[in-house]
């Protein structure tokens, strides 16, 4: 990491450029569409521009604002629950050896391997008996299936490089376990919580099938709304909602780029996916 050769640096620069082009390029037509009044084949750019798609998308009628709020709420809740469960689970997996550890790891990884629809159908029947279908709470819970693995893996990577003796030292100096967590453990694992949390947020943010199945069409998050407009052929409005939908992902990517550089253990756990 410290004495990179010029070749390696050039390669990383190139990789960065490709990544940006790959991420930004699909957004360009989306953005153009959202400001276009018709955009037809031989034209490279639309002949006429308008703000009407945006006006509609941001109006009360379209439901985009409500859906945005709902999606943010669901993703935040799923993220918070992932952190709550993922931190202790990651600690157990990262710090301790115990019998059946491989099995637990496999179970945690399973949702990233098994097709989501299979999992969702199973959960659907369970949720019926629990009365969780068609509720926001049910959607939040089902989002944990794909978000938890990321959180747990990130946290187990963090804890694998963590020395719990610091906690003993704090206790010995007179800190209760709560204060020990706050002053000693938390600052040490914060990078993992941030990275894992952002991933969990994004994974929840992009759920479609799980939301559709468990929400039963009543919990309309942004991807569902987006899909409705896309299939109805309104490219201009789809473009506007698409931009709104994609923005958080880009912001998060920029925020985490620093943490993803591999200088800390936060992403070490991903090596195992």
């Amino acid at each position, binding site marked *: 990491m410290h004495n990179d050769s010029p070749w390696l640096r050039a390669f990383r620069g190139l990789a960065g450029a490709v990544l940006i082009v790959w991420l930004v390029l699909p957004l360009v037509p989306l953005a153009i569409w959202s400001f276009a009044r018709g955009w037809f084949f031989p034209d490279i750019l639309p002949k006429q521009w308008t703000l009407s798609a945006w006006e509609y998308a941001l109006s009360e009628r379209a439901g985009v604002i409500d859906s945005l709020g709902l999606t943010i709420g669901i993703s935040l809740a799923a993220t918070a629950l992932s952190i709550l469960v993922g931190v202790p689970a990651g600690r157990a997996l990262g710090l301790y050896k115990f019998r059946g550890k491989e099995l637990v790891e496999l179970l945690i990884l399973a949702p990233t391997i098994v097709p989501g629809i299979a999992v969702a159908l199973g959960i659907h029947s369970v949720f019926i008996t629990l009365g969780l279908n068609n509720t926001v709470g049910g959607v939040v819970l089902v989002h944990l299936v794909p978000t938890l693995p990321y959180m747990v893996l990130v946290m187990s990577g963090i804890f694998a490089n963590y020395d719990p*003796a610091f906690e003993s*030292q704090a206790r010995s100096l*007179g800190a*209760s376990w709560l204060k020990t967590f706050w002053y*000693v453990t938390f600052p040490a694992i914060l990078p993992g919580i941030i990275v894992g949390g952002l991933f969990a947020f994004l994974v929840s943010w992009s759920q479609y099938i799980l939301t559709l199945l468990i929400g039963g069409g009543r919990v309309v998050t942004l991807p569902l709304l987006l899909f409705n407009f896309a299939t109805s052929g309104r490219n201009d409005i789809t473009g506007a909602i698409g931009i709104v939908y994609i923005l958080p992902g880009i912001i998060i990517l920029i925020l985490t780029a620093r943490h993803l550089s591999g200088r800390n253990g936060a992403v070490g756990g991903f090596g195992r996916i």
Partner: protein
Amino acid sequence: MTHVSLKDLTKVYPGSKVPSLDRLSLEIPTGELTALLGPSGCGKTTTMKMIAGLLTPTSGDVTFDDRSILREKPEHRGVVMVFQNYLLFPYMSVADNIGFGLKMRKVDKAEIDRRVGEILDLVKLPDLGKRRPSELSGGQQQRVALARALIVQPKVLLLDEPLSNLDAHLRFEMRDLIRSLQQEMGITTIFVTHDQEEAVVLADKVALILEGRLCQYDQADVFYKRPANEAVARFFGGQNFIAGQSTGAAFDSPLGQLTLPQGAIAGKGTLTFRPENVKIGEGQSNSLNATLEDRIYLGTQTRLRLRVGDTMIEAIANPDEVGGFDVGGPVPIHLPPQTLWVLQ
């Protein structure tokens, strides 16, 4: 002001069959400094952690002033442990590290600042309060760890090899500092080391632990004069062990009949004497004719390998005394009776 006592303290780590600490019993009087001495892996850190409440004993008890503390949480025991690897909190400045214990005791900010400043001077690290621990040398980190423990004035202080990373000069200074602070504050202190010299200089009493068992618990000089067994004598640098028969007054062995000091045991036993107590020249008693087999010049002293009959004897002498003897030639020696000791 705390009298610490360990009663048959035992630890068997999960998954291990042999105890890492086997029925350790020690009485450590109020305000005294006891050294736990022993080679790597003998159970020193294990003992400290159990006293600090960071590890649960398999059996046995720890009492402070005759009250068992095993049920008390580590933060309520009034014990502070300084770990072998310092464990300074990396996200805090040096000053915040040192003030941590006071902050947990809800001392107000201004008072913490004042006392941190004081103790930084005491451990000779003024001006370093704002740094991060990673910006300090190993020795400086060790002193910060020490300051962080002392500042809370614990009832019992546990120091796990607190001097191991200091250079010789600092080590002497810190040794004296620990001793004077400990006596001034009257803190009952247990001090881990694998260096016998450190234990001897610093401690009121030394507990020698070998392979999880207490071998001897005495004042330092006793380990040299009256070691409990061969292992103890060897740990303290003893090299001469000669099997034979004791009458209590004299010892019969391949070296001939040697006069013993008063209080020596009778019966079959092993005679031991320290290399530095082998005297060159004729003596009033216990004189022997040895042959010089080898010599190693060590600057202030010379190590000699001597042979008496078929028995090899290790000796340490003043270089001036032995300069005239040739390897292969005869050397007259004697063993003063008060320096001999018989082991069972």
